[in-house]
C-alpha cells in the first residue's frame, strides 16, 4: 500500500487483482476490435469461430471508402483540433489572469464558469440552434467549434489556473527583469513550464470535442456531420450493422486512444499536478 517494506514484491492477491484490472481495462475494447475484423457469422455461430483465416479488414476498407464517413472524419478532426487550439489560446490567457492577478470577483468568476458544467446540453440545443442560425453559423464547422469552445473553455480555464498557480512567481519576476512583456511571459515561460498540464488539458479538450454526440447531432447537418454522430447512425432503424458499428467505433476511438497513449506521460503528470491541488 505504501510500498515501504514490500517494495517490489506483489502479494498473490495483488497480482491477481492487477491482472483482472488489466483485463477489465482492455477486454471490452479488444472485443470491439474482434467484432470489426471477423465476419458477423463467425461471431454469431455457436461456438464462435475465431479461425485466423477469416480475419478480414473488408469492413475497414468499405468504411474508409465511404465518402460520407471520410467527410465525417475530416469534420471531426477539423472541429476538434480548432476547438482545442482556440480553447487553449483563450483559456490560457484567461487562466493566467485569474491565476496571477487577484481582483475582486476573480474567484466568483471561476465558480460561475464552473456552473456552466451543470447545465444539461439538452436545454441549450434549441436556443443554440436559433442563435447559430441567426448568425448564419448553423451547420458550419465554425458553429460547432464556437459551441464546443464555450462548453470546454470553463474546464480548460479551471485546469490551467491550477497549473499556472503552481509555477513559482519568481520565474515571472525573472522574466520581467529579462525584459518580457506579460504576453512574452505567458508564451515563453508560463506555458512551456506548465508543459504536462498544458498537454493534458489540450488532450482533454480535444477528447471532449471529439467525443461529443448530442450537440453535434442537433447542431449539424450533412455539411458538418461528425464521427460520433456517423458512428451512432450505424444502429439506425433500418441499418443496424454491428460489424460496421464496431469498425466505426474502433476508428472513432483510435485517434484519441493513440493520442492518449502517446501523450500518456504528460497526461498522467498533468492530472497528478492538477489533482494535488484539488
Amino acid at each position, binding site marked *: *500500500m*505504501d*510500498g*515501504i517494506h514490500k517494495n*517490489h514484491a*506483489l502479494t498473490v492477491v*495483488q497480482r491477481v487483482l*492487477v491482472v483482472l*484490472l*488489466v483485463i*477489465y*481495462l482492455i477486454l*471490452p*475494447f479488444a*472485443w*470491439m476490435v474482434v*467484432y470489426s475484423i471477423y465476419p*458477423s457469422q463467425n461471431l454469431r455461430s455457436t*461456438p464462435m469461430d475465431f479461425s485466423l483465416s477469416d480475419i478480414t479488414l473488408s469492413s475497414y476498407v468499405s468504411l474508409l471508402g465511404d465518402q460520407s464517413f471520410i467527410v465525417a472524419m475530416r469534420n471531426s478532426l477539423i472541429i476538434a483540433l480548432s476547438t482545442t487550439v482556440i480553447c487553449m489560446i*483563450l*483559456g490560457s490567457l*484567461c487562466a493566467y*489572469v*485569474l491565476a496571477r*492577478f487577484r481582483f475582486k470577483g476573480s474567484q466568483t468568476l471561476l465558480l460561475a464558469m464552473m456552473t*456552466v458544467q451543470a*447545465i*444539461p446540453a*439538452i*436545454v*441549450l*440545443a434549441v*436556443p443554440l440552434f436559433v*442563435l447559430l442560425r441567426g448568425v448564419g453559423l448553423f451547420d458550419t464547422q465554425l458553429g460547432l467549434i*464556437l459551441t464546443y469552445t*464555450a462548453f470546454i*473553455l*470553463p474546464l480548460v480555464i479551471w485546469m490551467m489556473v491550477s497549473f499556472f498557480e503552481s509555477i513559482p512567481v519568481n520565474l515571472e519576476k525573472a522574466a520581467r527583469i529579462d525584459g518580457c512583456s*506579460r504576453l512574452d511571459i505567458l508564451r515563453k515561460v508560463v506555458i512551456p513550464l506548465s508543459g504536462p498540464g498544458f498537454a493534458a488539458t489540450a488532450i482533454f479538450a480535444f*477528447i471532449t470535442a471529439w*467525443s461529443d*454526440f*448530442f450537440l453535434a447531432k442537433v447542431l449539424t447537418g450533412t455539411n458538418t456531420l461528425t464521427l460520433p454522430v456517423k*458512428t*451512432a447512425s450505424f*444502429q439506425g432503424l433500418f441499418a443496424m450493422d*454491428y460489424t460496421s458499428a*464496431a469498425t*466505426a*467505433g474502433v476508428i472513432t*476511438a483510435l485517434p*484519441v486512444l493513440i493520442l*492518449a*497513449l502517446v501523450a*500518456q506521460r504528460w497526461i498522467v503528470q498533468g*492530472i*497528478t499536478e*492538477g*489533482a494535488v491541488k*484539488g
Partner: protein
Amino acid sequence: MTRARVSVGERQDRRFAIAASAPAVLTICALFIYPMVYAVVLSLYHLNDKLPAQTRFVGLGNYAQLLGDQDFIHALGRTATFCVFTVFGGVALAIGIAVLLNVKFRGRTITRVLLLVPWAVPPVVNGIMWKLIFDGSYGVANEVLMAVGLTDTRIQWLATPKLALAVLIFAELWKLTPFLALMALASIQSIPSNVYRAAMIDGANAWQRFWRVTLPNMRGTVMFLLIVQSMWSIKVFDSIYVLTGGTGGPAEATTTINFLAYLTTFSYLDRGYGAAMSIAIMVIVCLVAVFWVLLLGRRKDA
C-alpha cells in the same frame, strides 16, 4: 494621507488582464447567456409544440407540475440508483485501483497507461461496445456465461429492466472509473512517504494505515471525485442513448431525469416543461455539488 499611485506597470497590467481574459469570458457569455435566458423564459411557459394554441405563461407552474409528476419522480429514483452505484461504486473502485497501483511493481507504468483507454473511448463508442457484449442473441457475455455453465439460456440483458440498468451502470463505471483512479492515485502519491513511516512506527498495520492515514488525507480529492462523478452521472445521456437505441428503455428502466428531459423536449415536443426539467436538473447538480462540499470541504481549523 497616502497617495494611491498607479504606476505605469500597474496600469499596463490592468489593461493586459482585461484584454487577456475578455475573449474567453465573452465567448462563454455569448454562447450561454442567450440560451440560458431563453431556457429560463421557456420554462415559465406552457409550451407544447403540438398544441400551439395552448401556449401561455404559467410562471412556476411547470416546476409545480414537476413535483407531482410520477414520471419525473420515477426517473429521479432511477437516477438516484444509477448515481449511488456510479458515484459511490465508482469512487470506491477508483480508490481501490489507486491503492493497488501505488505499490511498485514491474508493469505498473503500463497499467497506469491502460487506465487512459476507457477515458479515450467516446461515449457513443462506449455504448456500441457494451451493446456488442451484452446483446441478448449474439453477445459474448452470454457466450461466456453459458460456457462456464452459469446460465443455460441466453440472458436478455438489454430487455430486462433491472439488468439493462445494471449494464448501463457497468458501462459508465468502465468508462469513468479509471480516470478517477488516476486522480486518486495522484492524490495518494502526494502524501509524504514519511507519514507512512511514522504510522508504521506508531504501530499501524497496512489496513489501519489505509483507513487512518491514506483516506483522511485524500478528503479533498475524494470530494472532487464525488462532485465530478455526481455531475457526470446526473447528466448521463450519450451512453443511454446509444445503449438503448435512443429510448431509455426497456420499460423506461434507463430513463434518468436527463433522459426524461430529452424525451420530453424532443420526443414529446413539450418544450416548456422540458426546459423546466432541465433547469431542475441543473439545480440538482449544483445542490449535490454543494452537498459534497459541505460534507467534505475543508472545515476551518480551530
